[in-house]
């Protein structure tokens, strides 16, 4: 039983290769925003958008390469719960920024 599930897990990608690749991508996605902000590669909105995209991409790297989102019997439910969480997260953060920015303008 245990041996069987071990085989499954290894076949589905929890390998040294995927961890090393994930780690390398994470480092790259940390160096890019550092270069943008400290190295002055970009400015203003372009810089802001770039570092936010790098952060989201790095979250995705953690999910797929380290947390193995797509694996296991419950993968579908994991993803469903994550989507629900993401929707509420965007509503809370986006909604707060939107309302409070408008509030500042209105006053």
């Amino acid at each position, binding site marked *: 039983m245990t041996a069987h599930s071990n085989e499954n897990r290894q076949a589905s990608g*929890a390998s040294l290769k995927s961890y090393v690749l994930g*780690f390398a991508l994470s*480092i790259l996605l940390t160096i890019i925003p550092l270069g943008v902000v400290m190295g002055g590669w970009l400015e203003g909105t372009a810089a802001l958008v770039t570092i936010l995209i790098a952060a989201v991409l*790095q979250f995705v790297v*953690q999910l797929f390469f*380290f*947390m193995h989102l797509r694996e296991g019997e419950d993968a579908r439910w994991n993803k469903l719960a994550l989507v629900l*969480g993401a929707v509420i997260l965007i509503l809370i953060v986006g909604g707060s920024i939107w309302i409070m920015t408008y509030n500042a303008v209105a006053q």
Partner: protein
Amino acid sequence: MAATATEHGHGHDHSHGHEEHNQESMKVFGFWLFLITDVLMFATLFATYVVLRNNTNGGPTAEELFQLPIIIANTFILLTSSFTSGLAVLAMHQGKLKQLIGWLAVTMLLGASFLGLEIYEFAHLVHEGATMQTSAFLSAFYTLVGAHGLHVTIGLFWMIGIVLQLAKRGITPVTERKVNVVSLYWHFLDAVWIFVFTVVYLMGVM
């Protein structure tokens, strides 16, 4: 206590073992649901911080306060610890107990260095007169970054507990699930830190 009971059942009965495997995977799913609720908690803290970050009440601003070198070091420390906790899981799947404990120890050491630097940073800020009571910006800052630091602290003690269990019981379906869950938690903390790093520190000095 329940753990030892199921452990025994596993060796004896195949069909029972299968059921137990399902139960273990249900527990991992349950933990995943907890992580989603934790995401929501951090979402509210991030929203609060972003809304209040310019309300400095005449006190120091983010740009004046933050020392990026410490933060950059901490980012790479936590990133590496996320990787080493992954290596621990990998060693576990290969049945290598010593390697598993070794990688967990490295992960804990990196986690402790992260905390040490964060405490140093907080102490430094307070010394500069930037306390939680100074402004809405700093209240939101300490709450958000402190909540993450508290998670890391809990994770450290949790890992110590799991290493003790591993040393005593070895790799069983139950300890295997526990290592999987704590590593999930640790990767999650790294993911949250990426957003702290970007939204609080990088956007703070931009």
